[in-house]
């Protein structure tokens, strides 16, 4: 099995699904699930192998390569797994909507594009797959029409700006070295000058920062995530924006190289330190914007930006622990954010598109599996011990404290506290509290929605208790970048001053819970009463709906909202307005009268003659 065949299967699978959809919907669904499962199996078979430079095509005298190393394998398997889960989730989510063939086609095409990105061995094929991914993403974001069209437009404009930055970087690399193969570029850039590397890094920062929603370029993300269909929001948040992370890793640690990257500038003014600070700001501000959101998917979208900040902070800080933390957080975030978007999507599906947190409540009895999925996802998001989010956040905190960056560590911790705020709001407003009357006979989520949630919940818990399995692969990635090896065991990690042993924590929590449970059993048994049966010290208990987390953070919102104006978004909107005015100004010269055009021609000729008479340059 070669890499070309893998990509051929991925792309042709997407086209065949579209054609099959014209024949029979059932056949198409089965084929889409089958093809995405097949991709997972094929990529899993590549485990541990590395394929160097498989030549497949020549384009403008540039050879195009595919290659596979540990880094790309790790990303590829995550893409494939999230891909198959989102397809399974889509089966019932998308069933009653229109243009379903197109939807499946685009979902598979996005997956294939992302696989192409991580497998490409030169920048030209990287760019081609990047564009395939970007444009099919645009079509999926605007799938729902209406406000989704504007969100998609915002996304594609920013994405094109990023692509242009990448194109400039590539052209400049080609002009300097005459090659765009990644392994050859890595050799050439080791002797490049300081200014040139900085120039390249800033260009690629625009590209990948756009995709990864780093702070000045984040404005497309909340709209896009909340307007896209839920299974695709899961893909978008789980893996698609992480293509930016992959790009950062590729440029910073493979093309430019660890040594060059870390010695770029001095002390606080070095590039990697500034990028870490950008990551820290990306953690704090979006997290607190998420706290004041009322739309469930919008809240998760802002939280995605915040969590992407952790990943940037981890990979930019540049020690072996932080790189491991950053890459592991990428994986974990793919698991629990996909899970959360699916849980919210299931609620949205059953309540026919209600995402407003303040009008939901008490769904735990109606959708128990969805609740457990959301609960585990939220635990992972916060980083409660025994979930995988804890391990990656522990790695990031630890490296920041060890590396002597108290402010960055403080930013990471504040981000976690903010995460607790909005996670509590999310879980309580949807699932706990009182059930509104109109949702009295809500059914639980269909099995095709529960299955991906169950799988992802077990992934979150499993890799929280034995994080050694992915950490071993991540450690291999770190070594291939030139970092010192970490001492990874099955249940944790040993760093210079502290060790992590998740199995011990697991045992401690289990034993403590059992003891406490026994203590409470020994006491008098609690009488189960209705939710509105409360002791109010003789005062009247209101009988109507009393859902105390509705507008729970209003006081906090009053305090922080003046500081949380989205200046960047306002600036972009103004920029768009200026451009529009300028263009409509320019358009005025096209009057439609031939006489006017003749005058323009005469004036231009007169100008040319004047220039020739005055300076005689021709």
């Amino acid at each position: 099995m070669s890499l070309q065949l893998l990509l051929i299967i991925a792309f042709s699978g997407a086209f065949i699904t579209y054609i099959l959809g014209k024949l029979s919907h059932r056949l198409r669904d089965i084929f889409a699930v089958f093809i995405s499962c097949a991709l997972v199996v094929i990529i899993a078979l590549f485990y541990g192998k590395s394929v160097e430079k498989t030549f497949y095509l020549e384009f403008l005298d540039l050879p195009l390569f595919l290659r596979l190393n540990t880094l790309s394998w790790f990303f590829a398997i995550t893409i494939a797994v999230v891909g198959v889960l989102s397809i399974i989730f889509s089966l019932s989510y998308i069933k009653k909507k229109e243009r379903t063939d197109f939807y499946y086609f685009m979902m598979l095409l996005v997956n294939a594009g992302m696989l192409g990105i991580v497998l490409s061995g030169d920048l030209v094929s990287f760019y081609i797959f990047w564009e395939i991914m970007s444009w099919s993403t645009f079509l999926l974001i605007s799938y729902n029409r209406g406000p989704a069209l504007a969100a998609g437009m915002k996304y594609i404009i920013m994405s094109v700006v990023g692509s242009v930055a990448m194109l400039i970087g590539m052209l400049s690399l080609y002009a300097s070295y005459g090659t765009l193969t990644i392994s050859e570029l890595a050799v050439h850039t080791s002797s490049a000058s300081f200014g040139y590397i900085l120039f390249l890094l800033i260009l690629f920062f625009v590209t990948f920062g756009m995709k990864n929603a780093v702070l000045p370029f984040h404005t497309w993300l909340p709209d896009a995530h909340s307007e896209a269909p839920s299974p695709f929001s899961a893909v978008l948040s789980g893996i698609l924006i992480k293509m930016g992370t992959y790009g950062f890793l590729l440029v910073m640690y493979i093309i430019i190289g660890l040594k060059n990257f870390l010695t770029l500038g001095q002390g606080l003014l070095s590039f990697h330190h500034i990028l870490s600070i950008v990551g820290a700001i990306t953690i704090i501000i979006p997290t607190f914007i998420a706290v004041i959101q009322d739309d469930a998917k919008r809240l998760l979208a802002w939280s995605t930006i915040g969590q992407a900040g952790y990943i940037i902070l981890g990979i930019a800080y540049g020690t072996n622990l932080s790189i491991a933390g950053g890459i592991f957080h990428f994986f974990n975030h793919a698991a629990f954010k996909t899970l959360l978007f699916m849980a919210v999507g299931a609620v949205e599906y059953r309540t026919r598109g209600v995402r407003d947190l303040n009008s939901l409540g008490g769904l735990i009895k109606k959708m128990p599996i969805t609740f457990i999925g959301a609960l585990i996802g939220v635990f992972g998001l916060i980083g409660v011990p025994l979930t995988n989010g804890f391990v990656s956040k522990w790695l990031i905190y630890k490296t920041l404290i060890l590396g002597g960056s108290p402010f960055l560590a403080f930013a990471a911790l504040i981000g976690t506290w903010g995460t607790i705020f909005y996670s509590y709001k999310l879980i309580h407003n949807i699932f706990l509290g009182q059930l509104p009357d109109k949702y009295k006979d809500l059914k639980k989520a269909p099995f095709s929605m529960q299955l991906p949630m169950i799988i992802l919940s077990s992934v979150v818990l499993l890799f929280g208790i034995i994080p050694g399995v992915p950490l071993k692969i991540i450690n291999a990635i770190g070594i291939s970048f030139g970092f010192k090896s970490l001492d990874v065991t099955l249940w944790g990690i040993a760093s210079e001053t502290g060790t992590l042993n998740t199995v011990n924590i697991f045992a401690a929590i289990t034993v403590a819970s059992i003891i406490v449970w026994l203590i409470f059993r020994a006491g008098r048994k609690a009488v189960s009463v209705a939710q509105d049966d409360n002791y109010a010290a003789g005062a009247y208990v209101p009988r109507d709906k009393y859902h105390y987390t509705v507008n729970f953070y209003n006081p906090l919102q009053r305090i922080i909202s003046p500081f949380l104006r989205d200046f960047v978004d306002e600036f972009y909107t103004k920029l768009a307005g200026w451009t529009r005015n300028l263009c409509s100004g320019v358009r005025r010269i096209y009057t439609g009268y031939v006489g006017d055009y003749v005058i323009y021609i005469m004036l231009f000729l007169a100008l040319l003659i004047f220039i020739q008479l005055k300076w005689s340059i021709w």
Partner: protein
Amino acid sequence: MNIIGIILFPPVAFAIGIFFIGLSRRIMARVQWRYGPPIAQPIIDIIKLFNQSSISHGIIFGLGVILSLAGSIVVVLFLPLGKICPISNSGGLLVIQ
């Protein structure tokens, strides 16, 4: 040594906590020119509360109580008491956060 620590730590922490609550209530009372409850009052309260019947609003309500106490016990295991810290090598103080 570690096993003894793990077994002894929660009761010791419980005793210290109870003692300080009793002491603080007593001191507070003295500041306000009252006699105050006996130092063992929190223990009496706990025994009394366990004998009373309580109400519950469902499983999550009950789980919340259990998990908060279990969480506190685990946190105690990670706190250093002087030089002794039973399972500090499993993650250190960051676990508490």
